[in-house]
């Protein structure tokens, strides 16, 4: 009885699922800190996050967050986001229907000889562009789903991967309805 005598710990048996949220917010000082503070303060996980201004006249920004949790946790996150003063809308793209997710990555690969050739060939297969090239290195630009980028980076690792930089997921619902 005395494992945690002040509070009761309930272990959840449900498996956490990955959800992509699109949040439309006022583009104001501190709004990103507020959203991140919500996640960190309540122990929710941020797998990826992108933010940028989307409407200059109405001063709106869009934050796309990939998070994971049980069904009740995701419901909580959405409602906590929605009740924030600068938040206009919260959409759970994972639940609301088919959507498109894309990420961009810049991958630096260093090598010569066979591995350099192989790297170039792999990049062609993945439709990645070389945006920088020196006699001993390439920087590839690749866009696609997160899984595609994971696969590309995994293939580059034995070929001399030195550095990679990813943007995080941008996502939009399919069809004609806008946010």
């Amino acid at each position, binding site marked *: 009885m005395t494992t945690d005598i*002040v509070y009761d710990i309930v272990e959840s048996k449900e498996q956490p699922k990955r959800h992509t949220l699109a949040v439309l917010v006022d583009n104001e000082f*501190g709004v990103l800190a*507020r959203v991140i503070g919500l996640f960190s303060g309540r122990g929710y996980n941020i797998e990826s996050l992108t933010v940028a201004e989307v409407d200059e006249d109405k001063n709106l920004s869009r934050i796309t967050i990939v998070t994971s949790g049980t069904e009740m946790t995701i419901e*909580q996150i959405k*409602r906590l986001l929605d*009740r924030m*003063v600068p*938040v206009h809308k919260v959409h759970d793209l994972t639940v609301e229907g088919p959507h498109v997710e894309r990420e961009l990555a810049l991958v630096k690969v260093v090598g010569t000889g066979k591995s350099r050739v192989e790297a170039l060939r792999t990049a062609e297969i993945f439709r990645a562009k070389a945006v920088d090239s020196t006699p001993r290195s390439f920087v590839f630009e690749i866009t696609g789903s997160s899984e595609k980028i994971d696969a590309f980076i995994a293939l580059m690792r034995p070929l001399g991967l030195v550095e990679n930089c990813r943007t995080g997921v941008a996502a939009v619902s399919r069809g004609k309805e806008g946010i």
Partner: protein
Amino acid sequence: MENQNITGAEIIVKSLINEDVDVVFGYPGGAVLPVYDALFKQNQLRHILVRHEQAATHAAEGYARSTGRVGVVLVTSGPGATNAITGLTDALMDSIPLVCITGQVPTHLIGSDAFQEADTTGLTRSCTKYNYLIKDVNDIGPTLHDAFHIARSGRPGPVVVDIPKNLMNQLADYVGKTPFSRSSYRPASEGYLPAVERAVELMMAAKRPVFYVGGGVINSGVEACKKLTSLVRLTGFPCTNTLMGLGAFPASDPQFLGMLGMHGSLEANMAMAECDVMINIGARFDDRVTGRLDGFSPKSKKIHVDIDPSSINKNVRVHVPIVGDAGVVVQQMIDLWKAKKAKPDKKAHAEWWKKIEGWRAKKSFSYKMSKTTIKPQYALERLNALTKDKETFVTTDVGQHQMWAAQFLHFDKPGRWMTSGGLGTMGYGMPSAMGVQIGNPSGLTVCVTGEASFMMNIQELSTLVQYRLPVKILILNNRYMGMVRQWQEMFHGCRYSESYMDSLPDFVKLAEAYGMKGLRCDKVADVDAAIKEMLKIKGPVILDMVVDQNENVYPMIPAGAAHNELVLGPEQKTVMKSKDLL
């Protein structure tokens, strides 16, 4: 003052006056001197000088809860703002409307580690409903008006407005009260009618219903509490209140089951465990109420009315969630109940009440009276009896005395009971009583406290004397941190680590040192006389009541237990489980 070409500080004062503010609780400092200068030059807005910024926030909370208005705090930058954080967090947890204006170093010095600089907006982001850092003097008026709207609407909460000093000195025009500017913030009001209908249908068919009423109804207003009372009386259902909801439904009504929760009454907790329809209005299924979640009233259908959608389905799955203002939804329910000509199952209800009376008969709050030591429960019973005929406001600190006050003091009206529920802040009681007395000058304000809690904001005795606030402070002095000692006794094998209150001051001499009256009572036979004298003295009084050191608060739901697995006092000598009592 004219409205054209005035300083930012004057705009602040005008905005507050336009928001119907009549009192500000604060403490001066370098960054807010311009505002204090503007305050000095007028006499519409009253300022109460506290002795610590934390007390300013608690005083504003007490004022807000007892009057239904927004509490206003004015503190300086740096340490002023950080001292206010405890009170802001307390207001956030208990949903109290507060606007806290903090000074800030001049805009060109922000971020340079200037004197008395702190990242106020960063620090208060998670402990307020919303916060602002003003960067343009023309924003001061509109921002303050927005802040008041946010503080008092929807689920009330604290809002911080951080204003750099140079903006307070700049000149600008004040355009008057501006309408609320954010389209993204739309709090709910009416409940979704089909959901309310479903709720009423469940209520009509219920055989063992219970109302579970929380602080949300009190936040909704005095009218909302009256409507709730009519609904409970109309349906004839039993009603229990949370710690924050005491007073929403009259305690003297026979349909009242007492407070529920970790230290609530047996009948309230058992009714919640055995009900088939639970109607939650304005409460949030706090862990002090639910006990172990998988054992919380598993057989009942739950209706939840709350203005904050994130409180619904947060830790307890409910069957009929209704997002809306408690007062509005209760009226919808009354209208539907009458329109559907509801005929509840009288036989089932009579049986249900019989069961409830059986639990009531166990008298779960009873204690063993003593002729030699004063029992704290007895002191509070006598206080309740001797203040019945007056307009009494009670504030408490945190701990055993708080639980006994909730058990033994009976509140028939809302806004008479001020306590720190969600955050449980020791040191809340006396500053809160200051705010209550200022908001209700003709009321009798009693602060029930423990000697440990009382010493946390003891410096405010000076404020009581300065403003001639006739607050009656009843210290239940058991020379221990009572609740900590109780847990150490029950769960840590009586290892009383750091819970003994050593080197206590002589409270009578302390009161006199501050210029107020002090009384002491340590004999059972003197309790009535001491309380009567405390109430009779015009002006602030401390009554140091020396009480039994070994009393524990019962009943108790230990952590990890379900809410029907109460431990009753040594009078009953058993751990009750629901199957024993059905």
